[in-house]
């Protein structure tokens, strides 16, 4: 049986939260359902898009600590001796 847009929207919200590092909990699921429910109240059109736009405003995601990829650059020139 084909899924409804609301089911897709809920799946997206849960996946987004899980992949962003929010631990799965009944509270988190309740909040996700609430976002979808409120978006549904405004109709089916663009449901997924509206839900995903609303998500960051409603649920704070854990901060991702990104490692530094490189040290600050301190330039130096290489010495090139002549061949001949």
């Amino acid at each position, binding site marked *: 049986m084909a899924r409804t847009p609301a089911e897709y929207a809920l799946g997206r919200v849960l996946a987004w939260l899980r*992949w*962003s590092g929010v631990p799965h909990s009944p509270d988190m699921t309740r909040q996700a359902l609430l976002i979808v429910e409120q978006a549904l109240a405004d109709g089916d059109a663009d449901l997924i898009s509206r839900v995903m736009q609303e998500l960051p405003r409603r649920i704070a995601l854990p901060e991702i600590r990104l*490692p*530094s*990829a*490189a040290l600050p650059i301190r330039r130096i020139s*290489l010495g090139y*001796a002549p*061949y*001949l």
Partner: protein
Amino acid sequence: MNDPHAGLAGEAESTVPVNGAVRWRPVAMLRRAVLTLLVLAQTLVAAYFMVSVLPYHGGNAVEKSLVALFAILFAWISVGFWTAVFGFVLRRCGGDAYSFARRHSVERLANTPLARTAILIPIYHEPIGRTFRGIRAIYRSLQATGQLEHFDFHILSDSRDPNVWLAEQAAWFRFCKELDAENHLFYRRRTVNLRYKSGNVADFLRRWGRYYEYMIVLDADSVMSGETLVRMVRHMQLEPQVGILQTNPVLINARSAFARFQQFANRFYGPLFSAGLASLQLGEAVFWGHNAILRVDPFIRHCGLRELPGIGLFKGPIMSHDFVEAAYMGRAGYEIWMEPDLPQSYEESPPTLVDELTRDRRWVKGNLQHLWLMLFSRKLRLAHRLAFLNGIMSYLTSPLWLAFLVLTSIETTRLVLWPIDYFPSEYSLFPLWPEWHPEWAIGLLGGTALLLFLPKFLAILDVILVHPRRDYGNAGRLTISVILEILVSMLLAPIRMLTHSRYVIGSLFNVSLTWAGQNRTDETRWREAIINQAPGTLIAAAWTAFAFWLKPMFFIWSLPVSLPLIFAAPTSVFLSRVSVGQRLRRLGLLVVPEELNDFPLLDDVLDERILPPSKTGLTAFEEAVIDPVLNRVHRELARLPRNDKRRGRLHALRNRCMKEGPDVLNPRELSLLASDRETLEAMNRTVWSSTPDSCWGSRLEDRIMRD
């Protein structure tokens, strides 16, 4: 807290230090003189016999050429033979008294403070899992020494394919988190890949070289223990006149039959040759490009590689950089040591013959370029000029051997088909009767074979005398392994000879080549093997048919060369098989100490559960667009927004990618998208808001379902 990177190396102009207390130069000169005398004497005797064997005793141009070629080839074999003998004798005498590793006691080394050291891993389209598992193993091993704070790892990527470099970035982030390696594990991708690997390292040095006293350069398949890395730094600290300290990496992790034969030969015969080589080179050794530590300051000041100013092959960037850098370091007054006694330094063999020959294609060109440097570079040490010659001869011997075979065929044809020439010399009063003594020829052949195979038997003796039996299995299996290795090396020698000859001729005519990454996993397919080996097979079949028609005896003489070439394709396919390699291992054949004993360092490298291949069914690009955390990581590593013109092009590409999917874009276009911070963010937002039936929406739903 103090910045751990605050202590800058090499800011002041340092002077070249005087040599250490160990007077190794007279010893090196004496040993080299002895080697030269032995090789020359042996070659002269062999050449004399060769003249005697030839029907006209060198009386015509063909025979003169044959003798000259024979002498060069024999001298080359003789150098290898005596190097192994030197190694054997020194190992039997308890090691080289002038060995670099023997200079300092364990206590002194332990009390030597460390200095900041960068561990460089230049990569280019390498297998991600294996490469990063190796880095992880080295990192953890260093961590176990308690000295990690002195080391930084720099992954220097030259990868062009977005699905490769995005996977590299994802793996780097994952290991940073897992190992808590922030501020010790760095990743940089070059967007402009100038001058191959040496350009990659030079780019690092220009930006970050001032932070470090030393750099340890590794290959993607290198593994070294933390203890060895720490010990190398301490040796360098105690010997300020040393510019490069090279370890002798041994092969590990061989899976295919081909790689297992290479690994066994390297592990079994290698110690003899490396001990001999180190004893001859002493402080004028060479750099092999990886598994070595280099003093950063003199390297920056003296080892920049100018483009070659000659013509053809001798114009443009230097392709094989390592020998040249060692020569420049030597020219600047620093010593270069190769130390076989530094343990736990590993690398891997190409898995198949095709891969080895593909790698050799660029090595041939790189080594031949050294001819120009050998002849024209100013003030290089003689030892390093000879090292260039050694590298050139490693491949030039192949066309010389081929020429020898061609001349032999001409000589035989003349003897069989043409009337006898009783006066080969124009001014001779007396006739010369052509003589043919097969027993002399067999004697000469036997003598040459002795030079080729005696080192192998010395290696057996060395293993029996030095190693505990368990290192290589029981005596019976060891003997079978050696016999198998000899047979396979005889099968491969003509194939390598013909292919290297082709490469040498191609290089001299400056045929362009691509500097591709090395395959370290796949087996050779029949089609690939047949295409690769067809020229050799056809030439060998024609030659052997001609020999059969000409003279049955000549036909028999031709078989050791022609048969391996005729069967080159099946040999190549059979040896590339992992199942064959693993079967040999199960039978206890071609085993090496690391496989029979416990080596925890290698456990992480071999454990494919660490960083397994992705099971999401998505490419690294698709993951970068979809996964919210990875998207953040890639954004952080991407460029900031560009000018309006570029942004317009990016916008058009992004729209196309979002509408039609990533498959419609080429790697360059995908790279452009994945390199731009704003684009990555916008694509991520769009995908998560897309309808499930759109091309990206269906990918996302599929990914969610698999999770």
